């Protein structure tokens, strides 16, 4: 761990960059997936096409996707936007199905009760469907967050700096400690993200705490 004591500033800097690159795709992915999932849930005919189509996007391997995106986006090959857009596509791909499943899991009795109480469909979505779908949605978001954090490092291969830099540099210079520090830092960030989402879930959905304890 001699390597770490000499380079902890670098590790800290790269960790912050890594966090920044991971947060954007998760948030933007959720913002895109939510309306898509709602449309798929509300209009089953659209859903029958949209849900498998979004799932298919997840089939695209990451490195090839980051390389192919400049052709579609018109970006430069080393542009960090390729990485961020690619990771957002994965987030959307995973979340659309998960949110649809979450909405389906809401009891139809509750939904009908809210209709009978005179909720508009906008109110019903925000006050009934979404809060009750919350726990399933949250578990999907946790999977997305963890996989995004671990995928960001692939970006270093196409020149987008993150903790992945430590992998490539450590390999070039033959320093296993450098690679190991990179792996551990990535795992720590993933766990912190995951923990933060769990806490956020408890704060936003206090009623789930009673059920689990």
């Amino acid at each position, binding site marked *: 761990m001699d390597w770490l004591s000499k380079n902890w500033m670098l590790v800290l800097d790269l960790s912050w960059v890594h966090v920044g690159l991971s947060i954007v795709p998760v948030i933007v992915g959720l913002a895109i997936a939510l309306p898509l999932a709602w449309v798929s849930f509300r209009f089953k005919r659209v859903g029958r096409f949209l849900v498998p189509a979004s799932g298919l996007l997840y089939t695209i391997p990451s490195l090839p996707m980051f390389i192919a995106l400049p052709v579609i986006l018109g970006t430069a090959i080393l542009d960090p936007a390729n990485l961020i857009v690619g990771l957002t596509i994965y987030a959307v791909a995973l979340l659309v199905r998960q949110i649809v499943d979450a909405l389906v899991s809401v009891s139809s009795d509750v939904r009908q009760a809210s209709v009978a109480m005179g909720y508009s469909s906008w109110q019903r979505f925000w006050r009934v469907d979404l809060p009750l779908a919350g726990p399933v949605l949250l578990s999907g978001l946790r999977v997305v967050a963890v996989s995004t954090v671990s995928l960001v490092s692939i970006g270093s291969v196409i020149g987008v700096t993150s903790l992945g830099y430590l992998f490539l540099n450590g390999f070039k210079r033959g320093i296993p400690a450098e690679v190991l520090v990179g792996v551990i830092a990535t795992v720590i960030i993933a766990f912190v993200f*995951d923990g933060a989402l769990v806490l956020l879930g408890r704060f936003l959905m206090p009623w789930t705490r009673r059920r689990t304890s």
Partner: protein
Amino acid sequence: MNFLMDALNWILDPALHQGSDSLGARIGEHLAYTFGAVIIGALIAIPLGIVVGHTKRGAALAVSFTGGLRALPSLGVLILIGLSVGIGFQAPLATFVIMAIPPLLSGTYAGIQAVNPLTVDAARAMGMTPLQVVFQVEVPLALPLIVAGMRSAILQVVATATLAAYVSGGALGVYIFSALARRDYPQMLAASMIVIVLAFVLEGIFALLQRLARPRGTVVLG
């Protein structure tokens, strides 16, 4: 569109299809990694998943174990193993086995656990031994989810196998990494498209297998 035409020309170049390091051979290596890692992973994860799902013991441990494995960055693990065992095919294969285990384990475990307990009770009441219950009731009913786990493991490995070339492990990533060094974008793009098509084909085959894995007369589990 120029890049796409250049990429297509690269694929159609006859020189690419000759010799021991032809495109076909690289695709073969890619598939060998994929199926090799998933088979080895299945030999480890499926028995473990059956034990956890059947006994309902160690479920929490299995869940956090698979979660922890998922958080591992594949490139970092590959290079770490590569630095200790040297370049070649061993480090990529070991890495891909690690990547294949979480979906296989959670698929098997979830499949066995989702079997209706009344069905298991009925099987016991009919005088089935515990082993018969596992292999004649639980595993067949869990098969669709086990195959689903296999499908996502294959998807995971076929994507990560592209990285094998970074530690001189061959497969389709060879074209991508040599092109990255030379800034040869058309070759990068062509190789990427081949990997994407390969992933789609495997996904299609396994989607079909998953449908066939459903025992007759049962409803969809998940």
